[in-house]
């Protein structure tokens, strides 16, 4: 992965807030993802990571704040922007009654890829899914389905990728392979990734920057190295626990 450049952000989130009946799930969150950057969004359960990602996917409407992708407002250019980004999340499976080949072809069509059969073939090969290509998705293991979900996230060669725990169900060697593949493919497009994970080693491996959320607020936004210096810890997991335990501390 290339070092983040100083060019304008692929994703700019400004004062993003989401309230549900008096409960604030996301509270004035701001961060950026620049071209070539992998930004990890970390936080304990209920910190607001999934709500933030769902707002970026237009599944949830923000109460206030701005989301700009490629310099354009997501509200005003929804379809255009969604066609240039993609996502993978464990709570959003691909249709169990299709085969991986069919599902990748269908999603290539939904993302406007004209040569959808060829695109499906390429992705099956890239993600080592050829042997499973004509099996029903419902019969694949959760790890295989997850790998397929990440393959689906590349149907449109996105310039912005949102990955919500993309390696959660994978064994360590497969997770490593998948991480390498994601970084390789996104590197080709010069795009950026917003990545969530509870695997701190993974976060440290892939991230240029880490945004720590707690109780809906950004508690820290820095490189892994700087965060370690600031918190006086060698281990990201210790920083995670410190921030999660002290949610009302002022942001760093």
């Amino acid at each position, binding site marked *: 992965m290339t070092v983040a450049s100083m060019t304008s952000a692929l994703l700019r989130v400004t004062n993003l807030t989401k309230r*549900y009946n008096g409960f604030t799930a996301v509270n004035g969150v701001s961060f950026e993802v620049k071209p070539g950057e992998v930004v990890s969004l970390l936080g304990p359960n209920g910190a607001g990571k999934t*709500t933030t990602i769902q707002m970026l*996917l237009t*599944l949830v409407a923000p109460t206030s704040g701005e989301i700009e992708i490629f310099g354009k407002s997501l509200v005003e250019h929804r*379809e255009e922007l969604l066609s240039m980004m993609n996502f993978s999340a464990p709570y*959003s*499976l691909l*249709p169990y009654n299709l085969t991986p080949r069919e599902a990748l072809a269908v999603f290539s069509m939904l993302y*406007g890829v004209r040569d959808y059969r060829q695109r499906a073939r390429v992705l099956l090969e890239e993600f080592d899914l050829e042997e499973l290509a004509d099996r029903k998705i419902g019969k694949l293991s959760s790890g295989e389905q997850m790998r397929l979900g990440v393959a689906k996230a590349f149907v449109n060669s996105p310039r912005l990728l949102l990955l919500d725990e993309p390696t959660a169900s994978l064994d360590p060697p497969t997770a490593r392979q998948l991480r390498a593949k994601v970084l390789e493919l996104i590197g080709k497009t010069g795009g950026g990734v917003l990545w969530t994970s509870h695997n701190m080693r993974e976060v440290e491996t892939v991230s240029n920057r880490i945004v720590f959320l707690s109780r809906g607020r950004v508690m820290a936004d820095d490189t892994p190295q700087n965060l370690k210096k600031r918190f006086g810890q060698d281990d990201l997991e210790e920083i995670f626990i410190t921030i999660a335990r002290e949610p009302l501390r002022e942001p760093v």
Partner: protein
Amino acid sequence: MNRLHVLGIFYRNIVLIRRSVPKLFGLFGFVTVALFLWGFITLWVQTIAETDVSVDFVLLILSAFVFWSLFDLSQRSFGVSFLEEVWSRNVINLFASPVKLGEMVLGFVLVGIVQALLAFFYITSLAFLLYTLNVWDLGLYMIPLFVNILIFGWALGVVTIGLVVRFGPSADILAFFIPFMLLPFSAVYYPISIFPPLLQRITFILPTRHMFEGMRTVITEGVFPLSNVFWASILNVVCVILAFLFLYWMLRQARVKGYLSRLVQD
């Protein structure tokens, strides 16, 4: 036998029914609607018996059944196409894709057309084989009614999608219940003259009432039911517009209140 095991199964299901408006609706709604339906059918049969009017029951009832099946199928195929995405937990992928709502609906309409045509040819062939009922004998007059039936089915399909978006996967029962709810009030198997005067006025807003009245006019008088086709078409246009407004409103609410993500969690 362990009483607690039985109680556990009982409790789990009671909680499910108690918390789900659509399930409660299904519990009491079906029987209520069936009561209306059979009540009106009985009234009609009684009227005919008293007036001694010769009626071709087979033709009327079977033709009504064929056309009602078509309506039921067009609504259900539409609703189930969307439910299929919910059941397979793929719905988030769709709503987070660049696919516009209108494009999604149009895709479902195309699926609906294919399914409706297949089902129509199947059911009319079966009716011919079993009862020598040839719906094609009714002529080209039936085509506008046929088209209106499909369109109203799709409009209700759009409403079904809106309800599933609002109430979650547990509202799937509505996909099957909504057409049934309209059945007694659409005068499918009997003329509207059976209804009390107030109900006759109220049911005027149902496109299906005009379609089935029109169907009976074609069968019994052999003339084109201009008035019925006119009102069915006008009301259909209104229903399609209202159905889309309803879906947009439900979707907007779902985005504000976070119901979309709940579609894969319920």
